[in-house]
């Protein structure tokens, strides 16, 4: 039994059938990369896993417990699963420190001092301790995204979902964000990431899934997907990426 089991998941938005039967296993400490064109369903799949979207069919299990459909405690589920968004989504009316400590204080009911200690440790680790009292608009995009990652980590999730977290960043800021993800992977964090950074996907992932029109067309170790893809669509997708100079 895998840590995260996704079985025949379907998702529709009105007439649009976005996910058309996705099945996928993620083992503990694995890093799974979702690649594919925009609109292929990568983001939707991630959002379904932590119940930001309600799935229309299939089942998702986390560590053996069903975590989709009716009757689940979404708030409890989301404590187990952290997500980081493309557009950071920091709370603009709170300082960096408050952004990070809000959920530990209000959801985990940690005392403020303890929550702040932990937040400062995390901020120190990513080199942003001196920004603790700043509001997010004083930070660069890369710094904001690092704070967003730390905000999710402060809940000590068992699974991290990263939804194209470098797509909104200027190129020179991408590396500082990816370095954190690299560290997390080294520390054994289980992660699923939707990404267009193919070099990075090749480097960190244990498994790469190519999504096309709502199905996983091909999955396998990165060497195989990037080196010797069997599906024609995958080959065509990767060729476009290579032609764009991104691989």
């Amino acid at each position, binding site marked *: 039994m895998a840590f995260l089991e996704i079985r025949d998941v379907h998702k529709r938005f009105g007439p649009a059938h976005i996910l058309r039967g996705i099945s996928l296993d993620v083992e503990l400490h694995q890093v799974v990369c979702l690649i594919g064109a925009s609109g292929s369903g990568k983001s939707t799949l991630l959002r379904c896993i932590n119940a*930001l979207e309600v799935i229309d069919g299939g089942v998702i299990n986390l560590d053996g417990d069903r975590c989709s459909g009716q009757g689940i405690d979404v708030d409890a589920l989301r404590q187990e699963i952290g997500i980081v968004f493309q557009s950071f989504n920091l*709370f*603009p009316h709170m300082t960096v420190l408050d952004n990070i400590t*809000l959920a530990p204080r209000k959801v985990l009911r940690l005392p403020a001092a303890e929550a702040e200690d932990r937040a400062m440790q995390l901020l120190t680790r990513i080199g942003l301790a001196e920004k603790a009292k700043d*509001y997010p608009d004083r930070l660069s995009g890369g710094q904001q995204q690092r704070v967003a990652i730390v905000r999710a980590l402060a809940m000590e999730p068992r699974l991290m979902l990263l939804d194209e977290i470098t797509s909104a960043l200027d190129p020179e800021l991408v590396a500082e964000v990816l370095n954190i993800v690299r560290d997390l992977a080294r520390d054994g964090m289980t992660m699923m990431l939707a990404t267009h950074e193919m070099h990075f996907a090749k480097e960190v992932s244990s498994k790469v899934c190519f999504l096309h029109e709502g199905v996983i067309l091909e999955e396998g170790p990165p060497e195989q997907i990037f080196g010797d893809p069997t599906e024609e669509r995958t080959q065509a997708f990767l060729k476009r990426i290579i032609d764009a100079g991104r691989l």
Partner: protein
Amino acid sequence: MLTYRKAATASLLFPPAGIPAMYHSLEAGRLAREGDVEGARTAGGKARDWSWYAVGVGLTVYVIAFLLFILFNNHGAVRVVFFGWSILTNGKAWHSMLKGFWINIQVFFITEIIVLVWALVVAIVRLLPGKACRPIRMLATLYVDIFRGIPAILVVYLVGLGFLQAKVPLVGDLSDNQYVILALSLTYGAYVSEVYRAGIESVHWSQVAAARSLGLSYTQSLRHVVVPQAVRRVIPPLLNDFIGLQKDTAIISVIGVLDVVNRARFINNAKGTLAAYSMAALLFLAVTIPFTRWLEWLQKRSQNRMQGGH
């Protein structure tokens, strides 16, 4: 070409700025004929600047002059009716007016505090999600529709006189002031709830997604993420509504409370002028203008602390 020449000519209607404008425009013409293009442009620019002074300063001077003309025309009748000095310098009259105005201030402050809370409750109820909450959502919508649609003065009559006559349970035996507070709270609660609702809806859904994804409940997300951002955004329209409310406390006079308007009426009747109404107007201005400036300052401060966002 040479538009500054026409502007300078028009500026002569206000000679203090028009004469320099004309001088520079002639200078520009001379320099242009001598072939000094750069000098001509500089002089033309100066002529344009002076023409703008003619508009900005000249218009102001003429408008003020016109107002003074009205004030002192007809042997100063306007001045006597609106600003009878004998009353404006009458200490007893001011004392009586201030006593009345104090009631307006009290009604304003209490109503404002009630409205700030009550309107937020209504707005949140109108935005409750799901099928189960539909009846209460509709009830809140009905309330807003009704009380936004009735003139405040009618609500004051209906609540202030009607509740007392009909001995309505819970609110059948209140003082006149309390009835007015109740009536104005009902009316302004409906208005302000719409302001809050617009503010809450303007907070991008991705903020809620971020809050919920951290495990915060719907209520916690509203409390800590959505409402604080919404309130900051609606301060300018709220301010507008509260200045309206501050002025509408004058409605209290229609059910016989001895507020500033009724006291002014008595003084006017005794002295045969309207000067006491001007006094009342000055009293309102003395509160609304500083109040506006203070809220603008508060808003600027909060903007400085939280620029941008989205």
